[in-house]
């Protein structure tokens, strides 16, 4: 088990190095000199050259890459061109909205999807199954911002249970912040839950056709007992894969939902940075997202091993 974990950890480090090189290279290749961008079109050549020296842009590429990576390791992400503030500060503000929101949405989606998927699989072909499958079809088809608007209409405007948007910050108290994140989390979670429930159901149905389920039934287990005790754990592998992918999406892909609820999240930050050609911010935020995604994948790999003993002792 330990050897497996160490191996995955090694592959995590390698992935991070490769990803950082790619991101750095892409930003370099994109036309547009950051120094020229700051000074504008009418800048004098000597001013431009001076700024380039000051920003280190005249250094050779490998050195600049090393500088960039070393800076990030110390928590220095550079300074935003448009806002003239340290990128680290901007990201730190946003991540405390986006990360809790993503985790909140993922928990909700799992809590909805598992029972729904298991319920549907246990009633394959019957009314309950058809009902759940119809609902998930709808969940996959309807975009999350539409859910968001409906939720605001019902729970914020009519019932006034939740705020319709904005984020008070964690300093205002845990519950108040959670309350502000609830409607966005539900809107994000519903389509994800629909996908996850369908994966759970089909994975379970595959398992129910396996020989070991028949063996379990021959031991005297009822259909339901065989499903819970033997099929569910075996069905988890594909479900875990999807959960890993969904987390990455929820972290950065919530931009429309952030827009609908006026949340100061990472999605909005990256959108603004791209619009303003603030490449230093883009570079740092993308690297941060890649880091989180790779770490989540590492966690998913460990979860695989927890579920399936063949991965622990195998190669």
């Amino acid at each position, binding site marked *: 088990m330990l050897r497996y974990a160490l191996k995955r950890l090694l592959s995590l480090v390698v992935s991070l190095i490769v990803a950082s090189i790619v991101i750095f290279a892409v930003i370099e290749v994109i036309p547009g000199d950051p120094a020229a961008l700051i000074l504008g079109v009418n800048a004098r050549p000597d001013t431009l050259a001076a700024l380039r020296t000051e920003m280190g842009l005249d250094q050779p590429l490998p050195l600049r890459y090393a500088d960039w990576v070393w800076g990030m390791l110390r928590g220095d992400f550079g300074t935003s061109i448009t806002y003239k503030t340290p990128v680290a500060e901007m990201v730190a503000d946003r991540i405390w909205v986006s990360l809790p929101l993503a985790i909140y949405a993922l928990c909700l989606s799992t809590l909805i999807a598992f029972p729904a998927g298991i319920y549907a699989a246990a009633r394959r072909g019957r009314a309950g199954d058809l009902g759940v499958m119809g609902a998930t079809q709808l969940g996959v088809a309807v975009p999350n911002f539409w859910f968001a608007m409906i939720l605001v209409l019902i729970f914020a405007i009519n019932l006034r249970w939740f705020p319709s948007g904005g984020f008070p910050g964690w300093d205002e108290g845990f519950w108040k912040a959670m309350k502000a994140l609830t409607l966005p989390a539900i809107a994000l979670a519903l389509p994800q839950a629909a996908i996850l429930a369908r994966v759970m159901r089909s994975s379970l149905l595959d398992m129910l056709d396996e020989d*070991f389920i028949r*063996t*379990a039934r*021959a*031991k*005297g287990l009822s259909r339901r007992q065989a499903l819970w005790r033997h099929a569910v754990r075996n069905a988890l592998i594909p479900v875990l894969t999807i959960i890993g992918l969904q987390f990455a999406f929820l972290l950065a892909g919530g931009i429309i939902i952030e827009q609908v609820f006026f949340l100061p999240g990472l999605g909005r930050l990256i959108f603004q940075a791209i619009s303003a050609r603030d490449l230093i911010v883009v570079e740092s935020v993308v690297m941060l997202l890649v880091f989180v995604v790779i770490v989540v994948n590492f966690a998913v790999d460990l979860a695989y091993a927890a579920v399936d*003993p*063949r991965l622990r002792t195998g190669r």
Partner: protein
Amino acid sequence: MSLLAISDLTVRFGEAKAVSGLSMQVEPGEIVAVTGESGSGKSMTALAIMGLLPKAARADGRIELDGQELLSLPEPELCKMRGRAMGMVFQEPMTALNPVQTIRDQVAETILVHGAGSRAEARTRAAEMLDRVGLPQDRFPLNRYPHQLSGGQRQRVVIAMAIALRPRLLIADEPTTALDVTTQARILDLLKGLVDEFGMGLVMITHDLAVVSDMADRIVVMRHGEVMEQGPTARIIAERRHPYTRALFEASDHAVDLPPAPPPGPMLELRDVVRDYRLPRRKLFEPARHMRAVDGVSLTINRGERVGLVGESGCGKSTLTRAILGLEEVQGGSITLDGEPVFTGHRPNLSARRKMQVVFQDPYGSFNPRHRVGRLITEPFHLLPSPPKGADRDRAIARALSDVGLTPADADRYIHEFSGGQRQRIAIARALIIEPELIVFDEAVSALDVSVRAQILDLIADLCRKRPLGYLFISHDLSVVRSVTDRVLVMKSGRIVEEGRTETVFDSPAHPYTRTLIEAAPRLPDLDRSAAHAT
């Protein structure tokens, strides 16, 4: 009163009958074999007794276990009987166990689900049962997972699960079909011992008549869902009253009339062949470890010679086959066909490759379902420098198909339109079409029913009469190898441990391993002698 009494059992799938009007009894301590070819309804009978028929099936009639009628019993009551009053062992030990639970937990579950003890008691009983079926704790720790066990060991775990509560009736559906002969012999011994010890009734579903005549007290012969004949084993074997029973026994014991082999002249030559596989490193900076699958094998196959290769799974026979066919590079020694190496540089040598063809075991998996037969059997043409085209190609297809007993018109059909036996004929046509000097039959008849198997073996002998055909016949079934080969090689742990004329090796094996193999193989009793005895 019988332990199990089935009367007039009919299993229907819509209009089609899988079992019709079956009646049979099993007494305590008795072994009853239900035998027949695929589609005879023997497995459906087993599932009907357990109440585990597929949803689409409907069963009528009466099945009584200890006087308790089962077919009309509601599902919760049936659950209470399964595992407690009746247990079942399945064919595929590799997939019959839950891969993510330890073997102790899976055996203990039988006890727990019936509330027959606390968790601690269940675990103790599970350990006792595993010990009884030949998996003692000191060699097989209870926290092993199924993937850490071999097929035979897994089958022992399945048996331990089925007998944990000492059911009165045990049903075994082809329990040894997927296992090697020596493993099969041990599992059959185990089952026999358990029947004696517990006084269980055993219903044994099997297509293997040799196993049947070895084990069973009584035989039920089925065909197309109907019982052809049933009675005490000795009488059925001696009299073979029903024509189908007679045909089955004759097909099982089929002797092929091979023409004499042409004078020797070396064709395929292997010298000190070594095939290593790299194993994953256990430590980060450890030198790579290797597993030697084929260890210094030297052999010669002469032109037109029929050679058998026998050995148990994992002995290296598949690896050796792949090396001979030039599919994988070897790490030492040489393989030449007519003096030409099968592998040159790091690539297969086409001019040697086109003199060899192979027929695989699975007639269902070895064809692309989206191509017509004409295209399927001409696949080897890509090995030729100038493949025949147009009318020549059609003539080649027609001849290959007629050679294997099909018609030229079959070239336009798809593979799903053919039965298993016909597919194996098509596989042989595909091998024959470029008139190779050597054909490798890799377990080519193992998946076939006995009567179909007999026809395919006759076909092979027939082809040998038409033109000189040399082949390497790889099989775990010793009786088949005996009937279709001139010479036999016995392989164990990557080495050839014995070779010689087939008759000599089988009649007076020199190596202890060959003796073990031959003794473990179930044998049909001498039919003529038992018939004479009966009259």
